[in-house]
């Protein structure tokens, strides 16, 4: 059971700083997921923890010890690479035993551990094969097995599922979740996949351009994003974010964007402001009768997936909105629809993108 703490960690390549002072504490036994757009520094941060990269300043603390100077081979962590990085010239067994041999463990002990891990991951029949002779999912399991046998202080995963096809990804995702339930070790997991992050994490760390935007439990981030970046980033399809001006009128507040005016309850403390952003997730926009509607929009495209429907529609003078509905909506391109934003799930952000409200009381 291992606790990992980053203290004002910075990393520069040459003159370019790519990690700008990260403070983060990862509790023992937690499943922490790093998400963020490509190039934001997720892998770099993970590799800093692993010891594969040094820090430029700041400290990495594992179980109370500053390990900045310790090489990767001595930190006692295990890593699962996006490419799996299985040794192609070794059998599955050898792949899993390699790390143990390096620490000069007794043969029988190695044997026991490898066999245990293999049977847990259901790869016992393949122990003699080379990685080349395995399917993607099997390889993935071997990579995990290689990490497990070492009984590491923590597991680090760098986009471990991104090379698998959609179906397999779903299956492996479920396996990972149950693995964490079984082993209970500290796990740090990098992904750019929404669903993985939401479903696997105890805690999600949203990174952007080398900085932490928000840390929290998945539904916490979904329901209460602290800024427009997190609001836009968490949730798929993306939250509709619309720039507007807030105008007080009639004891109510109106969000003005182009010709459209959306009235919200004035229970929100909001000063009259030219720059505000409001957000509504696609699943929080309803199709209603004209009289109940906030706005009317033209359907640009409707995507019927069978069980659900996505509508892309543009209200007059506003950017396109995505609407997500269950079922098969009989809506055609060019048709008009009347939309209403679910106030309880609406988000308001100020001119700097900071949150004003997550959910507006009616």
């Amino acid at each position, binding site marked *: 059971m291992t606790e990992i703490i980053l203290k004002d960690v910075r990393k520069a390549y040459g003159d370019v700083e790519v990690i700008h002072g990260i403070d983060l504490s990862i509790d023992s036994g937690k499943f922490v997921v790093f998400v963020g757009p490509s190039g934001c520094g997720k892998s770099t941060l993970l590799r800093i923890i*692993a010891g594969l990269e040094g820090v430029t300043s700041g400290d990495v603390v594992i179980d109370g010890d500053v390990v900045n100077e310790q090489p*990767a*081979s001595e930190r006692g962590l*295990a890593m699962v690479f996006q490419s799996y990085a299985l*040794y192609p*010239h070794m059998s599955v067994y050898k792949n899993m035993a390699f*790390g143990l041999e*390096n620490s000069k463990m007794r043969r029988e002990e190695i044997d026991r551990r490898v066999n245990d891990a293999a049977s847990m991951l259901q790869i016992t029949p393949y122990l003699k094969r080379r990685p080349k002779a395995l399917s993607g999912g099997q390889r993935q399991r071997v990579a995990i097995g290689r990490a497990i046998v070492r009984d590491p202080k923590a597991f680090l995963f760098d986009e471990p599922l991104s090379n698998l096809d959609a179906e397999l990804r779903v299956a492996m995702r479920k396996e990972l979740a149950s693995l964490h339930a079984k082993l209970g070790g500290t796990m740090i997991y990098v992904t750019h996949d929404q669903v993985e992050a939401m479903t696997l994490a105890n805690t999600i760390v949203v990174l952007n351009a080398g900085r932490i935007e928000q840390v929290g439990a998945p539904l916490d981030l979904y329901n209460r994003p602290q800024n427009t970046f997190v609001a836009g980033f968490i949730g798929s399809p993306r939250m509709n974010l619309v720039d507007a001006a807030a105008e007080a009128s009639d004891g109510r507040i109106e969000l003005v964007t182009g010709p459209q005016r959306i009235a919200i309850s004035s229970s929100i403390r909001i000063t009259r402001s030219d720059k505000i952003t409001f957000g509504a997730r696609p699943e929080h926009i309803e199709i209603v009768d004209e009289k109940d509607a906030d706005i009317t929009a033209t359907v640009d495209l409707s995507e019927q997936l069978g069980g659900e429907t996505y509508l892309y529609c543009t209200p007059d003078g506003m950017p396109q909105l995505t609407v997500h509905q269950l079922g098969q909506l009989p809506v055609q391109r060019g048709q008009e629809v009347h939309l209403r934003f679910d106030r309880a799930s609406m988000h308001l952000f100020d001119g700097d993108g900071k949150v004003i409200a997550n959910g507006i009381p009616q």
Partner: protein
Amino acid sequence: MLTARRGGASWHWTDVFTYLYLAFGVCLMFGPVLWLALSSFKTPAGLLEFPPTLLPLGQIEVEVEGHDKPLPLYEVTMEDGSVRELAQIRRIGIIAQMVDPADPETSIRVPIASREPIREFRVAWENYTNPLERFNFLTYLNNSVIVTVVATLITLLINSMAAFGLAIYEFKGRNAVMLFVIGTLMIPITIILVPAYLVVTQLNMVNTLWAVILPGAATPTGVFLLRQYMLTLPRDLIEAARMDKASEWAIYWRIVLPLSLPAIAVLAIFSVMWRWNDFLWPLVVLNRSEVYTLQIGLNAFQGELDVQWHYVLAMTVVTLIPVALVFAFLQRFITTGIASTGMK
């Protein structure tokens, strides 16, 4: 498009050209070597002949009553135009004294221009057996094998270590070392023969096999080739090994080396070729027969005033045999390996 012909499509001129080119190419590439091999079985006289015969031939000799030694048989065109097979007793000037083996009593005088030797396919094995008996063939072979094997092993080891250092790490001076390696790719050994010999004498290595083994061990070509290949290995593997507590040596020995096998095989092939065929340098540093390599031993047939071609050719074929074997065994490495190492 000279790349691929799809089934069914009609013949393009390039298709015809391809097969003609290949047929011609194979003859051109193998023909000369075959010719050499065939020629090596000819007698010295057979080698001199013009026009040359394809197969090694020898004159038929017959036992004739009243003559101790067998006599050579000729086909003679008699004055009346008839053709007879006669054995020659002796030749005096431009007249040969001949005899019909069936009628040993009467001797016939024939102008030498009207006879043709009768010959049969005969292999001059003595071209091979004589030199092999005359020389300490086994010693030379042994030395050549030692030199080739040890030198190749050393080359593979130190070149791959250097390549590993240059491919896997980023360190100060890396570019300088690379430039240096590439720069020395350019120096033909021929032009530093004498200074290199001086160095070897100062190290007291003259007349030891080390004198042949060590100087060529640090080949720039090898470092370059292996490094280029190692650069293509996924860095993840090395980091995975580090995470697996592997020491740098273990990474080199247990991960990178086995994975570089195609490139190593290519270098091994080249190294074996270089060492096996090496002539000029051993000639300078080895002058005692117990340390001769095959190339020196077998070239001893090149005298000052006479080259014993029948031996030279036969011995050339002997030295070619291992090359042919290496070729046969490693052919797939050669064709795929060099391509995959890219040798760029």
